[in-house]
């Protein structure tokens, strides 16, 4: 199976990119191994407790992708700066389950093993 990596840099709601990434990833999961790397402001996407009144809940969409087998990882430097601190296993008490915080070196590894890369 080919691997697709999606890199995101925007947080939820501020732009359409989180929604677009969800739409791509949810279809890609049928034919690709899907990695999603949350970089810069995108580390806000997995925050728990999101309650948008007019938009789809981005956090839940990404949790669904993780549940379906996508590897969703957030940049440790960006996350720590923004107040998301990782436990030893990369999980974060502020994050929805299944999405972990990891070093930027993991992005390089994802890229090395990817057949297709999309930055949104």
């Amino acid at each position, binding site marked *: 199976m*080919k691997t*697709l990596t999606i890199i995101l840099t925007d947080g939820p709601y501020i732009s*359409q*990119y989180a929604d*677009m990434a969800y*739409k*791509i990833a*949810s*279809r*890609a999961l*049928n*034919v*690709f191994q899907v990695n999603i790397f949350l970089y810069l402001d995108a580390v806000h996407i997995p925050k728990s407790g999101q309650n948008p009144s007019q938009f789809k809940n981005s956090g839940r969409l990404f949790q669904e992708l993780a549940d379906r087998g996508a590897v969703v990882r957030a940049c440790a430097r960006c996350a720590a700066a923004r107040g998301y601190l990782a436990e030893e296993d990369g999980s974060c008490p502020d994050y929805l389950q299944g999405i972990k915080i990891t070093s930027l070196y993991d992005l390089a590894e994802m890229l090395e093993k990817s057949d*297709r*890369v*999309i*930055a*949104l």
Partner: protein
Amino acid sequence: MANRDIFLLTNPPQSKRAELCLRLMEHSEDPVLYLAGDGVYNLLDEALMREWPGKVMACNEDLEARGLQAGEGVRVPEDFYQLLVEEMVAEGSRIYSF
């Protein structure tokens, strides 16, 4: 479909990203342009669209939200993202996103 270059454009006309995307397309041997998000505003440039007959796909929900219609030669697939994924998984394809 071998060696197809897929250009996913989500930025509006006149943006630096849209300009670069279109210039890269001109250097590609087998390009296809996927317009989503604010990228669908590029459909307003009808001359540009006529340059790439049958090579431009537009995302229906993004078109409708913005009050746009696709002109001649532009395809509006029922499931834009499904088609995008199918093209991406094809052997030899490349994806460029702007």
